[in-house]
């Protein structure tokens, strides 16, 4: 498994995880019934590819909606990135009027020990 490329749909986000260069991007909406089933391959990818000390990665998250079970899975994903030896930065995008998504980013930032950049975007 070298890269993950998933097209987004009405329930699950677009996912682009690449190895050359290392990058992770999740965008769209994440409201699947079974979030664990959707996110498990993404968790496995982190375990398999973020094992190099000295490497760096940007984790870009640009979500419009996510349900509470997805919020748990995103937490699991970020915790695995945090535990890896790869130096990571999270780019958390939110629409400038969307204070809920800003607060969600702030909450992850408070829990996870990875540099966060909270980036407002125009709608």
């Amino acid at each position, binding site marked *: 498994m070298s890269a993950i490329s998933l097209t987004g749909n009405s329930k699950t986000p677009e996912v682009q995880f690449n190895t050359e260069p290392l990058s992770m991007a999740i965008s769209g909406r994440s*409201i699947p019934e079974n979030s664990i089933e959707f996110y498990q391959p993404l968790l496995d990818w982190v375990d398999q590819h973020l094992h190099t000390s000295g490497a760096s990665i940007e984790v870009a998250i640009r979500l419009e*909606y996510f*349900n*509470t079970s997805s919020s748990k899975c995103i937490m*699991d994903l970020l*915790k695995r990135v945090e535990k890896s030896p790869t130096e990571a930065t999270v780019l958390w995008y939110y629409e400038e009027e969307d204070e809920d998504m800003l607060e969600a980013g702030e*909450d992850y930032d408070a829990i996870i020990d990875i540099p966060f950049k909270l980036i407002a975007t125009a709608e």
Partner: protein
Amino acid sequence: MSSGFPSKQQSALISNEEIGFQQLELQWLGPISEHTIQCVIQWLESRMEQSDLPSLQNKRLVRVVVELLQNLHHHGYEDADHTRFTIESAHDKWTIQTENELTTEQRKNLEQRWNALMQLTPEQWRISQREKLASGNRSSHGGGGIGLNEILRKTEGHVEMTFSNLTSNAHIVRFTAQIHPRK
């Protein structure tokens, strides 16, 4: 010359809000499947394109509907005779109501969690949700018990939970959640 329409003053007197009129937007009775949820969300997003609600309120409405519908899917499917879901609107206030059956034990558990949340301030709802998120604990459906926090926060506390009895060990729980226009 009369136009046939009520004067401005009369018009104000018969506004929807003042006579308590709510437009029934959608009603669903029976089992909630994944397909049902998908259809309702697609309908809601299409409906929101015609509404005057600000973007944040639109998103909050969708987020609350998703949480409530997925809750019904997880907890109300087997007892679908008493599963009900409605969305109503009155100007820019939207009301979502759900009903599903539960046992006495489930009712006690839900009441306990609800009463604990009712003791908290909005900022404490956020802190409580963050703590549950950080804990790594999960419910059997993967949510980690933060759905109530989420609904309370997205509605800014405009949620009621009431019960009625079917039998000695069967009850109906009704959630009424409202998305109000921001002041």
